[in-house]
């Protein structure tokens, strides 16, 4: 009984705290438009606990004070994000349902037949973060550099087992882009997500693995894994010594990006309001610290520029998918 009572007090304390934050935040964010008046839902199209989910919760937590209303995260997982994105795209365009859009939105329409939603169904708000992909091997592997790997793969086509986090996913695309650029043939071994793929690498069941740099970084730090190259234009901040494929002359560039979007038809004032808030969030020291602790670089592109960037990425990834032979259209 005592424990229940204590729980009740905790709960009440939490409610009072939230109420205070809400009131204070409301006063802090003065806005010319009559928005926001109630809670805002941030839709995450993936399971709780995953990378996108943690990112969204961080945005919600640190962004609340800039938005001026509590933001709560809902998980609508399924179908490589199809369910969540469809919900976000078809929601009422009144600014109270915002979707966290990720790389999958620009890749899945090319690789998954029947994928129901593309970036065109959204009104983009802002790009918040990017993480480059990379290719890594075990610390005790015989491949010391990317050149070794490419050389071996050229002489033994189809023998190098490359683990990916799912056929048609961003990291499969990264591996395929690298293969196409270097003219080698990987044997792709798909796993259900990056976790099992990295586990397989550590267990020696695959020769190499293509993942996001943030996901493999903890293992690199632990000294169990060596990253051969970053498959992107810019090097990865936490691993500055790892060369990029572009710098090695290989034209392969696949990044995992995360941004916010609203349903098409949302009034411009609300979009601008969010862009202003996101600009402030990107400079928020705690948010940046949180992101860098997980190896994620905060990169901001807003509004129209984001829409153009999305279109370019959509076309680029489509080209890579077709070149790698994994496209369905």
């Amino acid at each position, binding site marked *: 009984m005592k*424990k*229940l009572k*204590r*729980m009740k007090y*905790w709960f009440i304390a*939490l409610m009072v705290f939230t109420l205070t934050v809400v009131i204070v935040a409301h006063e802090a964010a003065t806005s010319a438009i009559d928005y926001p008046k109630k809670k805002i839902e941030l839709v995450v199209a993936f*399971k*709780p*606990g*995953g*990378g996108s*989910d*943690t990112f969204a*919760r961080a945005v919600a*937590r640190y962004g609340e004070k800039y938005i001026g209303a509590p933001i709560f995260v*809902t*998980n*609508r*997982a*399924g*179908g*490589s994000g*199809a*369910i969540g994105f*469809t919900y976000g795209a078809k929601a009422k365009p009144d600014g109270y349902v915002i979707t966290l859009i990720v790389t999958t939105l620009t890749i899945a329409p090319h*690789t*998954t*037949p*029947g*994928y*129901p939603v593309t970036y065109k169904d959204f009104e983009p708000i802002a790009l918040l973060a990017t993480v480059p992909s990379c290719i890594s091997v075990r610390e005790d592997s015989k491949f010391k550099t990317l050149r070794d790997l490419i050389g071996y793969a050229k002489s033994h086509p189809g023998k190098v087992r490359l683990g990916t986090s*799912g*056929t*048609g*996913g961003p990291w499969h695309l990264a591996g395929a882009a690298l293969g196409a650029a270097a003219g080698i043939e990987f*044997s792709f*071994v*798909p*796993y*259900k997500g990056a*976790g*099992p793929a*990295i*586990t*397989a690498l*550590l*267990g020696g*069941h695959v020769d190499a693995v293509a993942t996001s740099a943030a996901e493999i970084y*903890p*293992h690199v*730090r*632990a*000294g*169990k894994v060596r990253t051969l190259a970053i498959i992107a234009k810019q090097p990865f901040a936490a691993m500055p010594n790892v060369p990029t494929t572009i710098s090695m002359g290989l034209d392969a560039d696949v990044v995992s990006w995360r941004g916010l979007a609203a349903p098409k038809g949302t009034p411009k004032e609300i979009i601008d309001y969010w862009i202003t808030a996101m600009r402030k969030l990107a400079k928020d020291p705690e948010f940046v610290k*949180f992101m860098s*602790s*997980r190896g994620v670089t905060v990169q901001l592109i807003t509004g129209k520029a984001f829409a153009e960037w999305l279109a370019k990425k959509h076309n680029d990834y489509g080209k890579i998918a077709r070149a790698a032979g994994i496209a369905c259209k």
Partner: protein
Amino acid sequence: MLTLLLTVLNLKTVLAISQGVALGIIIGVLPGLSATLGVALLAPLTFGMDPGTGLMILLGVYVGAVYGGSISAILLGIPGTPAAVATVFDGHPMAKRGEGGRAIGIATISSFCGGIFGVILLLLLAKPISKFGLAFGEREYLALGILALTAVAQLSGTSLAKGLFAACFGLFVATIGIDEVHGIPRFTFGSVNLLGGIPYIPVMIGLFAIPECIVNIERLSPRRPKFPPLEKILPSRSVLKKLIKPILRSAGIGTLTGAIPGTGADIAAIISYAQGKSLSKHPELFGTGYAEGIACPESANNAATGGTMIPLLTLGIPGGAVTAILLGAFMVHGLYPGPLLMLKNADLVYTLIIGLFVANVIMLTLGLSAARFFAKVSQIPPALFIPTIMLLCVAGSFSMRNNWFDVHIMAISGLLGYCMVKIGIPRAPLVIGMILSGMIESNLARTVMLCKDNPFKFFTPISSILIVLAALPFAKAQIMYLYNLLKRVM
């Protein structure tokens, strides 16, 4: 180490852990809310606290949720979490007989023993067990999946054909959606919701809860139901003595299964129930409300909580969905799980292990003291109780993904389950088929990729042992049959 113990065992941390355990038990009891969802929802709340306390609360929630599922499995016949599926088989018949208190007592003590065993193995044998877990490649997973599937034979009751029928149906239903291996949608008929696949938790809720409710409606009578209040919760010493061996064996199975990345408490419970049944002296009593039938899965699923922590703490690999969230929580606190964690933050690791131990102790005390309260629930008039359960099923299945489609799925599987109950087709194999389908198919595909030139490559040491374990009950039955035949001939 001793100083650590003293720092951990102060009132504030113990209170924090007990809050976590209590919340976890409540989450476990409510159908539809699994341990994963509970830990995921509570993790952000702990980000502001200091790493030790925050992570210990999450561990408490995990331990509590895995245990809490068994309470609704026993009293209501609805597994509160997927890990409690195997507890329904013997727990609910025992409760229907009026021995719900004893059943909860056995479940609590077995969970406690299993959990402590898991923690001890975590403390002493983390490195070798993690090596074992890492050695699991596609061939070993396939063999494990086949082993778990043979559990169907143990759960089919009288008719093996009906059990396999249900299992195949479950295996098929889980293939709807996007193919894990090739990323191609199957059987989706253009529906976005089907593209996401059919989640097995609403199916489990519908399959077990709705038929229970409807059959209880059929049995409604003006007389008061005979649900005796719980007088005796602690099982007698003789009962406990008989249960020691099954509990220890199941705890071992649970810890090892939990340590295998990608498998969790649910598969551990299923495998240990099947093994327990095949190795028991009275296998035919399993499923009728037999104490061993509760002890085996319960000790296994709580041992698995310790087991899933092994790859997390030693290698930084999540052992299951819950530990994946814990991994995220670690990183938020600025800790990088992996071999470095043991070196750089040894204190924290030992604190967590002690915290897990304390959580199990608190689970034992809370469980035993709250058992009476839980069982009073079954004394609520059925006219109110049954609609409330149905409403909880609807709310629970919706809350998983905020998708009303899941409620449709729950209703359809509820009506399907009712038909199956009337006809006599066991429902458990269907759920097992759904849980294992993804694992078996994707590992089969990867194994074919690996072994298509040389099929004998499949037989690695671990996979061979698992296949032998899977074939053992069948072989035993055949050998006994032949032996009896020979005896009659001679």
